[in-house]
């Protein structure tokens, strides 16, 4: 009944009053101990000796643990068992945890962790893409290649050819709540862990392995995270495992949270990478043949790098029908933080590659980039193309709607007039130049590791009529709990206030997938719906029997259960069910249908459907300094039949700003020894309030998902991030107004990068 309503976040009142609890806010006994890691001072080397006597002797220190002190598995990897919790002998990056300090307070633990004395045989680290290629330092034995058609034979016949290279910086998640975990020892050696994680089941598994416990002896609870963005998919493992081991060894609750600088230095970030391209095209800008080479800098551990780099390949086409294409992907192993999941999961890197190609083609031909884009679009689903166009991985694209959406946004954003007024401005002004650009988003929805596309739920009705729902999804701000509660509210026909979503808990719903891949409401909404439908079946069977009607005609709506000649209050029916010994709790389960994927061959149907969007962004740049501002952004985004428009618009607005941040001010810098130099908000600049576009129009495309998803909605977490690409392209457009050459803008387009791109556009060589 509350579906499609813009209800506030389920914890909105708690958020604004400061009563929403995060891991570090959970009241704990005074005996709680606090942990900190001692970190590797070098990017690569071998420990000759480690003297921790001063650490042990420091004030308040209770316990110090090194690799050799760990009782069982020394591993916190989410994939390849290649990430020890504590380095044993070999050091793989500057910031790698070497020992754990357990002390009376957070501050004392941090202080003591500084006191270790090392003798290290330092080795020359592999830091850059070039270093890794020279040393053939990589994950997987060879680059992965997906292809379609025969690009090599088509290239020579293409009317025009160009090529280029786009460097893309990484991105720190900068969740406002840093990584945190709290472990409480229980009876029988069991353990309860509170973790700020998107993946409670994995925390459970890693803790169980580290303590040699059965999984049923480890309970992980997550009420909420203060932001995740992919950064809490695998990066929480180390803290949770460290706390669990310390809690068992000391018999006391143990808590760990990273100081912000440690969080930057220890944890993985978005993969930085380079995308090389070679493209053949005709006089209208239609792509005839295209070759991409992706170089992903994965850091020291495999973590989630393979599926991330895969997803980049799966988004190398974005919205464009590419007849002949080859994508080659190198996954390079370097002595830096292990790059990890981050909103979009490789998709943004893949997508900006082809958007760069469209931009480059348009510049080459002197055409409006928007017209080149539209010429290359997949055919809209309304065209019923036969046979359907296929992606470079041979999946038919049958739900494409960007033709229509683009038409609509061009109109609502007044694109043509503004494009002309930008040109006029640029003709009149030499020191300030404006730029405008459109970019589309087509994002594949489903985990590419097919078996992850499953979810469970537990729904319980109590005798006062109140409903408690639990599912495997975690709440990190995206409003999942509210959306799922809205699903239950509609299914059971009861008001929202009757329903409470409880903290995610591995002891209630087992074997869950990470809340990731934008799949939270798709999967968990369906699982909760399945459980609610089971309960409705039981209740309607009872009522039908009591009132002598067919079960199918019993309706649940507005807190009433009605039939042809009766109208019962929800509470009355619940009580009656209890008295008639009808079970009032049910589990639900869902698995995404119709997907299969061979990631080695690069063939299949990895996604159930695509989520779409299109944006137009306008910027201004200062020719004298490269400083820039986003003036206006218009976005039209496809959420299918939105479960909650306000929450969805929130994802779109936030996604755009985060995506624009990645491509503008957010710059990660490592020095020549592999130390991250931008390890705090003083030097790493995420967008601030005034960086959002002053004019910011976001609307939702109102059409139901053609796939049978939860109430025909579409996933929304990641796709809007990639609207930020239009800001980057608008900057490139503004720079283009400064001179005749292609600006070859690199990311992040900091003021400094824009400044030097202006010189490239003017044809002035960079000198020092």
């Amino acid at each position, binding site marked *: 009944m509350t579906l499609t309503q813009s209800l506030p976040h389920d914890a909105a009142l708690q958020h604004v009053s400061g009563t929403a609890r995060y891991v*570090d806010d959970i009241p704990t006994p005074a005996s709680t101990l606090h942990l900190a890691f001692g970190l590797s001072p070098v990017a690569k080397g071998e420990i000759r000796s480690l003297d921790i006597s001063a650490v042990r002797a420091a004030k308040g220190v209770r316990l110090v643990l090194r690799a050799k002190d760990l009782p069982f598995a020394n591993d916190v990897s989410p994939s390849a068992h290649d990430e020890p919790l504590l380095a044993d002998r070999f050091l793989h990056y500057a910031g790698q945890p070497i020992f754990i300090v357990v002390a009376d307070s957070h501050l004392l633990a941090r202080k003591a962790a500084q006191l270790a004395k090392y003798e290290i045989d330092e080795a020359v680290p592999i830091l850059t893409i070039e270093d890794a290629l020279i040393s053939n330092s990589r994950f997987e034995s060879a680059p992965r290649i997906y292809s379609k058609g025969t690009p090599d034979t088509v290239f020579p016949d293409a009317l025009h050819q160009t090529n280029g290279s786009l460097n893309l910086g990484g991105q720190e998640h900068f969740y406002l709540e840093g990584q945190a975990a709290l472990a409480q020892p229980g009876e029988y050696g069991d353990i309860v862990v509170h973790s700020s994680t998107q993946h409670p089941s994995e925390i459970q598994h890693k803790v169980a392995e580290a303590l040699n416990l059965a999984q049923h002896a480890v309970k992980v609870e997550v009420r909420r995270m203060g932001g995740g963005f992919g950064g809490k998919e695998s990066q929480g493992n180390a803290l949770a495992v460290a706390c669990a081991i310390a809690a068992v060894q000391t018999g006391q609750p143990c808590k760990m949270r990273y100081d912000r600088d440690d969080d930057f230095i220890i944890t993985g970030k978005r993969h930085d990478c380079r995308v090389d391209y070679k493209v053949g095209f005709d006089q209208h800008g239609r792509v005839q043949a295209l070759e991409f080479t992706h170089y992903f800098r994965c850091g020291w551990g495999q973590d989630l790098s393979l599926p991330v780099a895969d997803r980049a390949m799966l988004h190398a086409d974005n919205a464009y029908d590419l007849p002949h294409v080859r994508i080659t992907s190198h996954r390079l192993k370097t002595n830096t933080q292990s790059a990890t999941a981050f909103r979009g999961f490789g998709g943004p890197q893949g997508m900006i590659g082809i958007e760069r190609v469209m931009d480059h083609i348009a510049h080459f031909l002197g055409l409006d980039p928007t017209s080149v884009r539209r010429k290359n679009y997949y055919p809209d689903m309304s065209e019923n193309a036969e046979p359907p166009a296929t992606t470079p991985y041979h999946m038919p694209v049958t739900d494409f709607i960007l033709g229509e959406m683009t038409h609509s946004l061009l109109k609502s954003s007044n694109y043509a007039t503004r494009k002309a007024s930008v040109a006029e401005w640029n003709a009149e002004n030499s020191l300030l130049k404006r730029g405008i650009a459109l970019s589309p988003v087509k994002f594949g929805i489903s985990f590419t590791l097919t078996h992850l596309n499953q979810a469970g739920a537990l729904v319980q009705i109590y005798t006062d009529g109140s409903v408690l729902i639990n599912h495997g999804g975690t709440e990190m701000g995206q409003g999942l709990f509210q959306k799922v509660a809205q699903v239950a509210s509609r299914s059971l026909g009861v008001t929202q206030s009757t329903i409470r979503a409880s903290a995610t808990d591995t002891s209630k719903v087992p074997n869950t997938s990470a809340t990731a891949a934008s799949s939270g409401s798709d999967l968990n909404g369906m699982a909760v719906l399945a459980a609610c439908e089971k309960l409705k079946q039981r209740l309607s069977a009872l009522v039908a029997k009591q009132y002598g009607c067919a079960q199918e005609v019993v309706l649940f709506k507005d807190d009433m259960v009605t039939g042809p000649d009766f109208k019962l209050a929800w509470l009355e029916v619940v009580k009656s069910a209890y008295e008639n010994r009808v079970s009032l709790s049910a589990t639900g389960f869902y698995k995404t249908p119709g997907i299969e994927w061979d990631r080695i061959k690069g063939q299949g149907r990895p996604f159930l459907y695509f989520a779409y969007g299109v944006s137009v962004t306008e910027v201004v740049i200062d020719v004298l300094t490269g400083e820039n501002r986003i003036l206006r952004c218009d976005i039209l985004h496809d959420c299918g039949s939105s479960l909650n428009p306000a929450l969805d618009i929130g994802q779109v607005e936030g996604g755009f700003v985060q995506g624009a941040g990645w491509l503008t001010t957010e710059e990660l810098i490592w020095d020549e020894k592999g130390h991250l130099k931008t390890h705090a908000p003083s030097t790493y600049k995420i967008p601030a309030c005034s960086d959002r576009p002053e004019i910011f129009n976001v609307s939702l495309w109102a059409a139901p998902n053609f796939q049978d998803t939860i109430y025909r909605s579409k996933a929304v977490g990641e796709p809007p991030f990639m609207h930020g690409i239009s800001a980057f392209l608008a900057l490139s457009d503004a720079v283009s107004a400064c001179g005749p050459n292609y600006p070859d803008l690199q990311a992040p387009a900091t003021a400094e990068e824009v400044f030097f791109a202006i010189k490239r556009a003017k044809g002035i060589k960079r000198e020092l």
Partner: protein
Amino acid sequence: MKISFRLNGVSVSTLAPTGTETLLEYLRQDKGLCGTKEGCNEGDCGACSIILTGENGVPRAMNSCILFLPQIQGRSVRTVEGISGPDGTLHPVQEAMISQHGAQCGFCTPGFITTMAAAHAAGEKDFDTALAGNLCRCTGYAPIVRAAKLAAQGQVPDWMQEGPQPSSQPTSSDLIFCPETSDDLAQWYENNPEATLVAGGTDVGLWVTKQMRNLTPLAFLGHAKDLRQIEDHGQYLRVGATTTITNFMEAIAPLYPSFNAMLSRYGSPQIRNAATIGGNIANGSPIGDGPPALIALGATLILRQGDKRRRMPLEDFFIDYQKQDRLRGEFVEAIELLKDQNRLRCYKLSKRFDQDISAVCGCINISVEGNIIKTVRIAFGGMAATPSRANKTEEILVGKVWGIKTFENAKATLLQDFSPMSDARASALYRSETAQNMLLRYFNELENTPVNILEVRA
């Protein structure tokens, strides 16, 4: 030492044995008031924001993570837990944040609520500036600004009114000293020249939270009223060293609008409410934003040691990186700046527009008689080991014709004045070239050619 203050309307007292216990630690650990969050522990994210009301009764947003307990002696603190009424009635900013969907993950929200409530009480409508010190990673800020606009229509609730200030007599000890006058400070500091002086603590705070240093002996200057006076002497202003940037801005806004506009990008409101003009000078940072502008204005620095005072042009104070012309036991007492200069322009270049440290800060002040350049003062931050004047460039400009050619010819001279370095904020080449371009910007701006991207609208 014993600290007494008012917390959410209730008088409390506590002990601060080292003097460097932070308000944030106290709130979260001692009082269990966990609404106030630690996001960065260095005053850059605003998740720890609280409202501090001093004896002037003006509520100001501050970062509690780098606010030491002795700094709040005798003042009133309001945390997110004290923003709603005693009966739970929500403040207009809280209601608006719910109705406008201004919170997603919620972790930054308490800091936003307190900052917004402080802005609301002040009738502030420039929300980009008011909220520049609060980072949000989820919402993209749009719904937060919508909420701030909506809440601006609501009344300031009665419960936000702070009661009379509790006794503000700080109890000093030998190692933690809270002078009530500059004379007290002068005497004590002469006897304790190794001491750390804390004014706003926005820099010293990080020595504690990040470097985990022990700072005793310590003096907290915030209780010495005469050190934070701004006196108008007709021809010039005398600005006490512990005048906050916020108060300084109010005083100079009518005189030097460009300086004021640049300072509105100095840190954040929370930082400007704590940081002091004297601290910005005394810490000798090569990238502080105050000194270049003050040097370009020809400000005079007044140093004091015991009863002795020295006066010097501000630029002479900065000798080399982390080295100033300051004697043992000598402290910055005030600056004096003339009121009659009106062609000062200040250009701050940073990676992010708001709340960032300058890569280059260029301040240019050129007077013209007829068509001829008469006087020139140009000072830069971020271009050398100290804030410095561009002496050679100044010389070259004096006496030349006021025209673009003059500036185009002169800009290369800047490279004789400065050879900047590369760091995480900018490369040497970028610093050199943009610093030169600031000269061109200056000319263009004074000739009314559009140069300011902030003035462009879609």
